[in-house]
């Protein structure tokens, strides 16, 4: 277990910023709440100065990890290192971390400026200097004109900027954001997403951002950590996690991929045939072909699949192809989401460019053949736990 996790963390082939201030390492971290295990023996290295997203469904342990880094929770086992120093038991400010709470937790009785200046006040800094520095920080998040409002008089997005300013005034080396965009409407979410990235680049410290939204993580992060049931499924660059998912779980959770999983029934060197949902699918084989009878999983990106009308349904499908019937068509502007049924054991989706679709529009129920190139088959790690796919898109 321990070894496999270490392997995950070193699997980052994408470009990550090289170590700066605020690097984080979790070593064998386990957190139990009574009998339930929230986080199970995790090893993770986050480079300093990077934007890291912890991604997973609710209850996967991502917030617990964040809170352990913040010092609001202590690991049951293991160590949390910031810049190489074990910080377990240290208070947040001593760790150099600052947290932005999901509810923002702005003090309702204090004006925005006083909220931002709270850290300066507890440190005994004089009133004039407090206000000056708070206004400076508010300007940084473009909120200086709201300095004397109470938090209740602000919109969600504005409250968030205040919370951000309040956290940043402690000059942390790590900023921890707990689902920062979840309380905002779609428009604001996209706007704040860009803002967060801008501010992270501006202050140059490590941002650790907990989210359950895949596209948010992919859009923001240098490094995405996909979690499930208290464990790390994959920790890699956003591109790797999306394009080269390690396991079936990651492929299903990130979306954008079709996962073909089944039992190997035939293996003739060049190709491998699996049985999936009563259908036989032939795929080009990996370098080390799987044994007959074993579970085999591969992923194909939805936009790497071509569709053609099936001549006859009974025709034996070729390698790297599945046959099925159109069960859903969703217009997405520049592309269409075509869902096939009876293709394999799970939903098979093709993202078709609009020009291609409208050249010869398909209708529901039409028999089709979906094909892809050998180089677009991505083999998934065996031993992944199938049938736990979470979000479908």
């Amino acid at each position, binding site marked *: 277990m321990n070894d496999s996790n270490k392997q995950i963390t070193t699997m980052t082939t994408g470009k990550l910023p090289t170590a700066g201030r605020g690097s984080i390492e979790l070593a064998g971290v386990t957190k139990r709440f009574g009998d339930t295990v929230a986080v199970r023996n995790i090893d993770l290295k986050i480079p300093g100065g990077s934007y890291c997203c912890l991604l997973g469904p609710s209850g996967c342990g991502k917030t617990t990890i964040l809170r352990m880094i913040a010092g609001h929770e202590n690991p049951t086992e293991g160590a949390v290192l910031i810049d190489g120093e074990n910080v377990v038991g240290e208070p*947040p400010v001593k760790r150099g971390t600052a*947290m932005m709470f999901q509810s923002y937790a*702005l*003090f309702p009785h204090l004006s925005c400026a006083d909220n931002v200046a709270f850290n300066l006040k*507890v440190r005994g800094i004089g009133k004039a200097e407090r206000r000056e520095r708070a206004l400076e920080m508010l300007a940084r998040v473009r909120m200086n004109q*709201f300095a004397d409002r*109470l938090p209740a008089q602000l919109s969600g997005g504005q409250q968030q900027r205040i919370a951000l300013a309040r956290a940043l005034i402690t000059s942390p080396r790590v900023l921890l954001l707990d689902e920062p965009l979840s309380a905002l409407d779609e428009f604001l979410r996209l706007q704040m997403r860009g803002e967060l990235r801008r501010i992270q680049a501006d202050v140059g410290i490590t941002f650790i951002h907990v989210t359950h939204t895949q596209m948010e993580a992919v859009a923001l992060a240098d490094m995405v950590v996909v979690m499930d049931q208290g464990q790390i499924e994959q920790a890699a660059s956003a591109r790797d996690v999306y394009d080269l998912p390690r396991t079936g779980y990651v492929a299903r959770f990130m979306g954008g991929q079709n996962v073909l999983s089944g039992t190997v029934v035939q293996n003739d060197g060049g190709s491998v045939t699996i049985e999936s949902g009563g259908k036989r699918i032939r795929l080009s084989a990996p370098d080390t072909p799987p044994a007959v009878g074993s579970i085999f999983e591969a992923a194909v990106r939805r936009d790497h699949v071509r569709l053609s009308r099936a001549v006859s349904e009974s025709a034996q499908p070729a390698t790297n192809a599945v046959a099925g019937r159109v069960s859903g068509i969703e217009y997405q502007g520049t592309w269409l989401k075509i869902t096939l049924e009876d293709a394999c054991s799970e939903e098979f989706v093709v993202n078709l460019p609009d020009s291609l679709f409208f050249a010869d529009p398909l209708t529901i129920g039409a028999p089709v053949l979906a094909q892809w190139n050998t180089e677009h088959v991505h083999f998934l790690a065996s031993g992944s736990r199938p049938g736990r796919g979470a979000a479908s898109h």
Partner: protein
Amino acid sequence: MGQAAAPAQKQLGKRRWTFYALSAFFVLFVAFLYGPMSAIYVLSFQGPTGGLTFPMRGYSTHWFVALFEQQRTGDFAGAFSRSLMLAVVVLLVTVAMSVLAGLAFRRRFPGSTFVFYFAVASLIMPGILVGLGVGLTFQLLDVPTNWYSAALGAQLTWTLPFGLLIMFAVLSRFNRAFEEAGRDLGASNWQIFWMVVVPILFPGMIAVALFGFTLSYDEFPRTLLTAGAKNTLPMEIWGMTTNVTSPALYALGTVTTLVSFFAITLALGSIALIQWRRSRKLVSNESATVEIGATQ
């Protein structure tokens, strides 16, 4: 605007019969609640020759003056000041202990359920028995009972569970993240308590204070057997009803009601004052910053 008002007006003209039935019921309720008391308030302004019942024989403040003449109506002034002092002490102890106990009950300490039921049980117990028990205990220990000792303790068995229940309601809406945010920003536990917890809980604390004060101010059964030689106001009034046969009794009712209203006004007023000062401070600062904002 006109369009929005139109449907409202239409509704105003055509009310359902239930509206009138419920309104009538409410008017009756108010009449029952305030009718008997207003008779007392009116009769307290009885002329010097007037009696305990209507009709009024002229109007005067004669009986209010008589109230403060000790020899005629008992030690009203002394009882009043004792009751006030006792109520203030009960208020302070109730607020302090309810807030601290409420905070403690947020974490499930061993035996917390037992302690909670034990505390709340004294609400159900007949007050006269609590007073009797406290009085007997003091007698057994050979300690003289006094309004500031035995009666204080007996009253607290009544106000503390109330205060605790109010704090439960207040704290159920208190987000723990506030304290974590305080800790995250480097505040010590002491600073978190005074700079975050107390200001946020302050309106709830005023509610507890108001309860503590009013429950103590008119407390009778628990105080009766524990106050010792010197009466509190409710006991003084009780005594007067049996031996005073003049409208001074009504004057007393009017005065004590005014004190109760004063306490409530003080509590609500202080909340309003805090909010007003806060908003005024904000507005005065804002006028300076709005111009900056406008140029952006």
